[in-house]
């Protein structure tokens, strides 16, 4: 009855908010995101040493409830809202597989793992940092381990395979499986501003940096020079094609308005002309200039010595994601190879960014302005992390000493560290680690109260 009553209240609230608006989507998203509190309480209960489960679960729930780094993403309408629900389900499935190794628990584990990967692709790394340790620890019998791994593998391959296959059918044979943005993401951490400049370690749209070249003997049309810059013959023809290219964007309204009044064409139009040039008729260019004049005709004649400027067009990058991967990935990898000496310091800076210890105030400001997290959550998110860290380390030591499974809690932290070092340091990429740090910190806190509290105990009391 209570459920029906609350549900009815929610329904009325939805009606008042107008069910298809951004505001109603945010309302429902925080409702979903709040489920992380009881779910992580359950994780804490399962992860804790014997006799500590109840208290660890409650402390974990409290941290997850109030820690801004965890709740700030719930209302952002990004994938963090879903992640705070599916990651605890995966962790619970890990503990179930540890308690009851076998085919059924492995299939459940695989389903939750795929849910996590289809929420944030980089969390596929949990397959390396968590799963092998779960199987090795779950059973001493190699036959059970093999059956579990097989059941997991078949389920995961089928589920991911269906989605990847669907993507290949839609995007063409060159599309890279479950996500098309790997090269794009790598590119966002691989240029001077984020490698050696003021934004070192942060995210930056590197593809947005203009490229220039001088026409040489043999170049007769602007497309010859731009295609050479991009490394793809025919790129300029496609870019300037009236049907599939970037000509005439933001001029005609879409049949259906998708964004509840946001992303308005009248706001986008000036940005396009500022970024890609304004043509004589006032419309936006495509990001190609000959001697500082924007052009949209690939056959525009050029002569040796003419200066050609080119900038990847944000919207054209969306028209063919396989082509975009082909054009962005090679120069990104080349940049990294050319700057390999600076890689260790950049990796350290990225880790410093995501933990808030490198250029702290600037990093907090980036979290506020780049991610729109607001002044308060941007500060308290990092402070909360720093406060938890010593307790989390203590919690990991306690688990290690008591021979409790560590991989489900430490694995996400290692995965975040690795991904951050490879791409860039943005705090919302830390979310999966924030959730497991909360559990480890809760264990460390309970251990500290046992050791230093007013009622010091030599052995742990049972939970009620």
């Amino acid at each position, binding site marked *: 009855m209570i459920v029906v009553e609350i549900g009815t209240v929610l329904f009325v609230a939805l009606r008042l908010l107008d069910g298809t608006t951004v505001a109603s989507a945010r309302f429902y998203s*925080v409702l979903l995101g709040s489920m992380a509190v009881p779910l992580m309480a359950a994780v804490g209960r399962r992860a804790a040493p014997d006799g500590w489960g109840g208290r660890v679960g409650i402390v974990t729930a409290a941290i997850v409830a109030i820690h801004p780094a965890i709740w700030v993403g719930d*209302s952002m309408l990004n994938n963090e809202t879903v992640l705070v629900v599916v990651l605890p389900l995966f962790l619970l499935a890990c503990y179930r597989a540890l308690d009851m190794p076998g085919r059924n628990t492995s299939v459940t584990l695989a389903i939750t793992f795929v849910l996590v990967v289809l929420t944030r692709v980089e969390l596929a790394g949990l397959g390396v940092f968590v799963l092998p340790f779960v199987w090795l620890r779950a059973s001493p019998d190699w036959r059970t381990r093999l059956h579990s791994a097989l059941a997991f593998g078949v389920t995961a391959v089928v589920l991911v395979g269906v989605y990847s296959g669907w993507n290949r059918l839609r995007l063409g044979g060159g599309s890279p499986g479950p996500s098309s943005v790997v090269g794009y993401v790598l590119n966002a951490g691989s240029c001077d501003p984020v490698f050696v400049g003021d934004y070192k370690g942060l995210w930056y749209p590197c593809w947005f940096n203009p490229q220039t070249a001088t026409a040489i003997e043999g170049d007769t049309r602007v497309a010859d020079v731009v295609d050479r810059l991009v490394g793809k013959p025919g790129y300029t023809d496609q870019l300037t094609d009236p049907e599939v290219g970037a000509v005439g964007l933001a001029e005609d309204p879409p049949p259906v308005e998708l964004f509840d009044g946001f992303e308005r064409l009248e706001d986008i139009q000036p940005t396009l002309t500022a970024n890609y040039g304004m043509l004589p008729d006032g419309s936006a260019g495509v990001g190609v200039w000959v001697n500082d004049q924007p052009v949209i005709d690939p056959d525009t004649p050029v002569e040796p010595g003419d200066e050609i400027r080119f900038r990847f067009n944000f919207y054209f990058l969306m028209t063919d994601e396989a082509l975009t991967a082909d054009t962005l990935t090679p120069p990104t990898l080349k940049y990294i190879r050319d700057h390999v000496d600076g890689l260790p310091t950049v990796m350290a800076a990225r880790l410093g960014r995501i933990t808030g210890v490198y250029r702290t105030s600037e990093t907090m400001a980036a979290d506020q302005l780049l991610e729109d997290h607001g*002044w308060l959550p941007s500060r308290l998110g990092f402070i909360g992390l720093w406060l938890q860290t010593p307790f989390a380390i203590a919690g990991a030591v306690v688990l290690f000493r008591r021979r409790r499974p560590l991989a489900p809690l430490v694995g996400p932290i290692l995965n975040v560290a690795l991904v951050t070092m490879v791409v860039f340091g943005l705090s919302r990429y830390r979310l999966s680690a924030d959730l497991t740090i909360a559990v480890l910190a809760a264990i460390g806190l309970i251990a500290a109260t046992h050791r230093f509290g007013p009622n010091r105990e030599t052995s742990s009391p049972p939970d009620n």
Partner: protein
Amino acid sequence: MTRWQRTVAAIWAVGLAIRLWDVFGYRPTCAPGSSIGVLGASCYTLKGDAAGFFGAAHLVRLGEVGMNPLLYNVSGGRLVATASKPPLGVAWLALVGWLGDSPWLGQTIVSVLLVGVIALTVRHSGAEPER
């Protein structure tokens, strides 16, 4: 309910209150085209990745699954396939949008089910066996 379950439920209520304060108090949704300062924070504007998720979910409700909404918006409705957004985030917002589009009875039923799932989660989390 056990004492542990009641405690977790109470903490959940606090967590939900903080999140609702964020949505309605600290970072309310901006009127399109405006940016109001609220307690040192800006109001929430749909943009970037979030716009991609929200628009893709809207396209799903129109029957166009896996299409790029940002390109659709600026190109007069051109539909181009995308795999740039993980599907679960889009699926969630599509469900929320469906809640808003569907008849009142459908909304009520789904709202009740959603709250039921949350209630069961709280209950189940307290029922985990102690080793």
